[in-house]
């Protein structure tokens, strides 16, 4: 269940910074270690930028979730962009359709505990991550 949640738009690169700040604030509230905070915020930054650059903008639904005794931060990035035709390929290190290094998806997957991606060509992409405390 979600203890609290908030939706933020991702339409400009200033919004990417705001997503980072929200992730940092909540991770601090949940008393994540500094390394865990940094990993979550970095993954949030990568995925928010993907939403902006590849998805043509979208939104993120951030929530604090609880499962038994543990709490975590769940971020769900959603866009209505072109989607990803080959997910397996997109999750490979070094694969890029933009000018980046191709670490956005594969790298952020390594920085979180749960990672789920749903994409339909022509309809958009949703990436959901959770970092547990």
């Amino acid at each position, binding site marked *: 269940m979600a203890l609290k949640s908030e939706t933020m738009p991702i339409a400009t690169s200033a919004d990417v910074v705001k997503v980072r700040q929200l992730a940092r604030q909540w991770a601090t509230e949940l008393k994540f270690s500094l390394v865990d*905070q940094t990993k979550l915020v970095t993954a949030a*930054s990568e995925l928010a930028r993907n939403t902006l650059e590849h998805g043509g903008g979208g939104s993120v639904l951030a929530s604090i979730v609880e499962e038994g005794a543990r709490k975590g931060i769940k971020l769900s990035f959603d866009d209505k962009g072109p989607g990803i035709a080959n997910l397996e390929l997109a999750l490979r290190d070094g694969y890029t359709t933009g000018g*980046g290094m191709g670490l956005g998806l594969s790298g952020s997957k*390594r920085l979180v505990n749960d990672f789920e991606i749903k994409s339909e060509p022509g309809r958009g992409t949703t990436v959901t991550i959770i970092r547990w405390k």
Partner: protein
Amino acid sequence: MDRIPILKVGDCLLVTIQVDMHDELAMSLQEDLTSQIAKYASRGVLIDISSLEIVDSFIGRMLANIAAMSRVLDAQTVLTGMQPAVAITLVELGMALPGIKTALNVERGMELLQAYLNQDVEPEETENDGAQE
């Protein structure tokens, strides 16, 4: 638009990044820095990121680009002050910043640059094609 200040200290340029950078700000730093290297014929660039709480693949690429561009302009770049949590995250993300010289803090970074300027050759990366021997 805001800009990251660049200080001229002798032969070197000094940059301290103290804000949570959005992507356009990172791009403008890249441009400002290269034009100042050319303007002052600087031989060294020191970038201190001790206040930076995250380095994602975009910021990492920008830093690697600055180092590469400086090298082409005959200047050496040293990156200083990376927080341990940032270093851990960056490596896990998949970016180890190869080709960038780093130092623990500004003081050691200046020493490294001075050593380079005094020797007038690039330490460690001196390429020897054997033609002059």
